């Protein structure tokens, strides 16, 4: 993300309502309380591996109103959901919950990460995140267990109703 960001962020072009939209999502109500102490970033295990994943910076971008940059960012999907940031935050910002909200908003805005795309594809074709092959069913037969059916049609309908269309992220 850092590479393709301009060095100067023009706040005149930012969307000041973005933080308020995020704060209306369940779990993300307290995002505006962040005073950028950095406790979340300091303890984030993902940040240890990829310094680009910086919770404090993501919150900052939300507060500054950088809607497109945040929602299109693949970083949203890096979170390991360990909840350490949430337990650490002195202001109760609940960043893990904020990320769920942001991921929902990203998908609504049409930003799909490739992994999510692949998972949707699996659901659509197999009705499961893990394909059931002949190997599994043969094994089950050895123990007298019934074959597992794949019922992708239910999910197809569901995904259509939710208007979630698998596509490549930008």
């Amino acid at each position, binding site marked *: 993300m850092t590479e393709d960001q301009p060095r*100067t*962020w023009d706040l*005149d072009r930012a969307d000041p309502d973005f933080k308020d939209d995020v704060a209306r999502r369940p779990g993300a109500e307290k995002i*505006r309380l962040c005073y950028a102490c950095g406790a979340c970033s300091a303890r984030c295990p993902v940040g240890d591996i990829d310094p680009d994943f910086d919770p404090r910076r993501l919150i900052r971008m939300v507060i500054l109103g950088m809607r497109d940059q945040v929602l299109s960012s693949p970083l949203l999907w890096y979170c390991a959901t360990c909840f350490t940031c949430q337990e650490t935050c002195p202001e109760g910002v609940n960043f893990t919950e904020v990320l769920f909200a942001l991921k929902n908003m990203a998908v609504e805005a049409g930003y799909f990460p490739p992994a999510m795309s692949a998972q949707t594809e699996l659901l659509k074709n197999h009705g499961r995140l893990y394909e059931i092959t002949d190997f599994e069913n043969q094994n089950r037969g050895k123990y007298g267990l019934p074959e597992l059916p794949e019922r992708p049609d239910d999910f197809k309908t569901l995904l259509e109703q939710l208007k979630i269309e698998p596509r490549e992220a930008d």
Partner: protein
Amino acid sequence: MTEAKVILLASRPHLAGLGLDPEDMGRELGNLVNPGQIRMVDDWTSLDAGAFSPEDRLVLVGRSDPWPGGPPGQWPLNLNVEAPWLAGPLNERVSALVRAAVAEAARLETPPARLVEPDRTVLVWGDGLEAGRVVERIAKAGFPVLWAGRRPGNQVPGVTALPCSGLRAVEGFPGRFTVWLDDNGHWTDKAAGAVVLCGRLTRRAGLEFETGPGLISLSTLEDGWEREQKPDWAEEPGFRLVFLAGAGRPPTPHGLGRILSLALRARRETKAVVYVLAPQIQVAGPGLERLSGRARQAGLVFLRTPLQGPDLTVMENGRLRITMPDLVARADLSLTPDLLVLEDEVIPDPELTDLAAALGLTVGNDGFPSPDNVLFPAGTTNRAGILAIGPARGTDAPEILDREILAGLDVLQELLTDRTVEDRLIVDRGRCTLCLTCVRICPHQALSFTNRPWADPLACSACGLCVAECPMDALQLPDHTDGRVKARLAALLARPRTEAPRLVMYGCRRSAARAMRIAPRPDEPVDLAFIPLPCAGRIEADLVLTAFLGGADGVLIAACHDHNCRTQQGGPEARRRMGYHQDLLAESGFRPERLGYITLAPNMGREFTELVTQFHRAVRDLNQPPASGDPT
């Protein structure tokens, strides 16, 4: 000068702790006083106070502080503090220190004391809410109050209103001032024991910009809104309203509170996007933490600027553009405000500036006549009995004003109470030629003259600036007479020389002497004779040259840090004289570097050792045999 009987009390455990044989040492010390006037002490608590007369002078070897219950003339001597700083055999060092203490104790003097009965009337100068609050609180504390100002009120009982157009002069001394008031050319004088300057509140925007379109001061926006005039931009969606707090310095808690309140109001009552830019958000004020939490929750955007403020550029279309780095975003931010609100700060009213000059009050860098010195209660000026609080001290926050009033009341209570005070300055009427150098040099306006000069004991801080400057040596501080200082110097310099260069330190008794108590011992043998002075400002050519004549290789002046001096001007005055003293040395063929100047605070023991060791090495290098022709 009378020499009183000196009795030496030496602690056996103290001497033994130093590695000396108490009996041997006792016999040696006994030779320093008249026969029979040394007593060895095993336990200070077993001493009988009845065994001494009030005229006796006691030297207490092995104590840091006087012995409670003993006679008034006591001279404690803790050898553990001073002995490590001298070089040579231990018993020689101990005898020299005891000899110095005996010489000083013999010259202890009790200055004449007199009863002072100060006038308890307090004159308050100023207008506005702040002055009213000050007047009310002082009157409630039981002082008769004269309220002088353009429109003083008289509702408060015990307050006399004195409408006038200006305060012109404050003559005399605390407890008996004469205050001159000007009512449009008609001058009247009023008697008062103390004067409280309050003045009136004057503000200026913190940045050097003319206010104009797109730029407004916080007070102007506040005042407009106070009068229920909703700004014309209130209904404009996305209007960028930017508050700039404390450029060049962090915002004051009170200033931040004003900004947050108004910014919250803007967020509630308008459609603007509200930014608050500040180098630092300090919430240590009443209700501030809650206010800042509410401000964040309401969606105000806080941006941290560099301390000197963000970069402001005027674009081609005449609008301002703000740019600054953002550490959290790890990028630069840019923003063009539709309206930029500048925090304004309290500045000295021009009238106050004139008044300070007329009253001889020293003003600080901020232009206010109350020194930024933690050793003094808030509002104290260089003249005892004249206080500057509220707007006259740059204060607009009610809660800070309240604390200033409390501090001021303490000062007034102490100053305006009948009591017996000792004279702080002795004048030798035969020597004085009435040149009045003393009257002019005194930073506290504590001296006046009738036939001969004298110092008011309530105004005098006993710094000794006048003593040092007197060309006739006609002035003395009773507890640091020339005779006593020189007797101590002579006793310490009478020891045989050692390898180490011989150093003399004239140090402030409030800073250097205390730092010495906690200073780690030097790594190499240093020979430092420590001579306490009441204040570094007391140093004069006579003392410097006497030390060199007595065999010193180097003389070190140890003052307090500027703005941390009990007498306010001691350090700067001592430094000013350094040049003169070094010229004298150069003229007499000495290297001027043999005279050094350092500053210490009472808690700087480590620095004491470092600075003395540094000076010791520098003087040792100067002592190396010089190439022929160089000055020594």
